[in-house]
């Protein structure tokens, strides 16, 4: 997986802990987006032909190539369903998010 990962953010305790001006490390992610989901994609690896259309079209870039297989970073998937809709093989289905 070559996506940025959630990182821990140290809440500033002193004014000098803030960056000088509005500047911060590119790709720094203290929050996940998993809480947005009400449904989640389930990949049927049998059906998948690794055409990468889902990888190309995921608005959140959460699908990645995992040793010749599709995998999804569930920290950042929002459950939009684009991958499932676009998959030419119907290899992805959206299922209700579990608690």
């Amino acid at each position, binding site marked *: 997986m*070559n996506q940025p990962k959630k990182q821990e953010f140290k809440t500033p305790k002193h004014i000098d802990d803030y960056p000088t001006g509005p500047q911060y490390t*590119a790709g720094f992610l203290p929050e996940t987006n998993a809480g947005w989901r009400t449904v989640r994609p389930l990949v049927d690896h049998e059906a998948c032909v690794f055409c990468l259309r889902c990888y190309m079209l995921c*608005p959140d870039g959460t699908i990645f190539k995992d040793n010749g297989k599709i995998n999804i970073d569930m920290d*950042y998937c929002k459950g939009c369903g684009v991958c499932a*809709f676009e998959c030419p093989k119907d290899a992805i289905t959206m299922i209700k998010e579990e608690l």
Partner: protein
Amino acid sequence: MNNMLAIPKVNVKNMTDKEFFYGHKACAGCGGSIAVRLALKVLGERTFAALPAGCMSAVGFIYPQMAFNINALITTFPGAASMGSGIAVGAKAIGLKDFKTVVIAGDGGTADIGFQALSGMIDRNDDVLYICYDNEAYMNTGIQKSGLTPYGTKTTTTPTGKNLPGSVTHKKNLFEIIAAHDIAYAATASIGYPQDFINKVNKAKHTKGTSFIHVYASCPTGWGTPTETSVDIAKEAVDCGLIFLAEYENGEYKLNRNPKNFKSVNDYLAKQGRFKHMSDRDIEIVSSNRDKKWERMRKHWLQK
């Protein structure tokens, strides 16, 4: 301009597997974020991105969550192009080499309030790629009409009812207006045709001087469409002929797709909350304008 034949092709198999727009807070299924994400993957790490106020900046830079995994900044809403110019010129002045500057702005930020700065940038021919992701309204502020909102669209400032059919003005000819500046490279695209979009970004990446890509990018929230159809609806817009794929290069237009038959405009409109109210008469206006536009494009733009 460089020799385009020499540019290595980029596609989903060989493009970097790094993500440069990640962890952002866009609505689920946001088409704009697909455009941004793909463009940055083509442009790569040595890119400075400048985004004016608009959805993509609003969802990408919420301290301390920094969704741009490359150098990027938010610009004033009217000043995207000029701040982009400043980056490109400044980076050159301090001696940087081998980098690209990209401005990524919405339709309102491009065709309305940021238009002057964009025009000035093209005029100076600063080495910047300007990408307008067009979701046909001011989305970040809650779906108001922009200069690129098509006729008949329901927005919060072009309501529909007994007296008005939604927007009464037509979509500004952004691409032609930009091309008329005699820009080095300009193109239209749609996230519904992602490889075509990738190719165009790649071409622009290798263009010296100003280049411009107008990419159609769906907004499920503003359009009233299901999140999962975002790519499909952007494809359908092209297939029904309301959006065209074209390029302007070396002073000439090129029509990239010139289908014999269009898919139904009705079907395209009926799928979207923003067009549901449209009367047959208004749909007729839309269709006949499409036909006129294609007639003109075919007459003038087809390579003879």
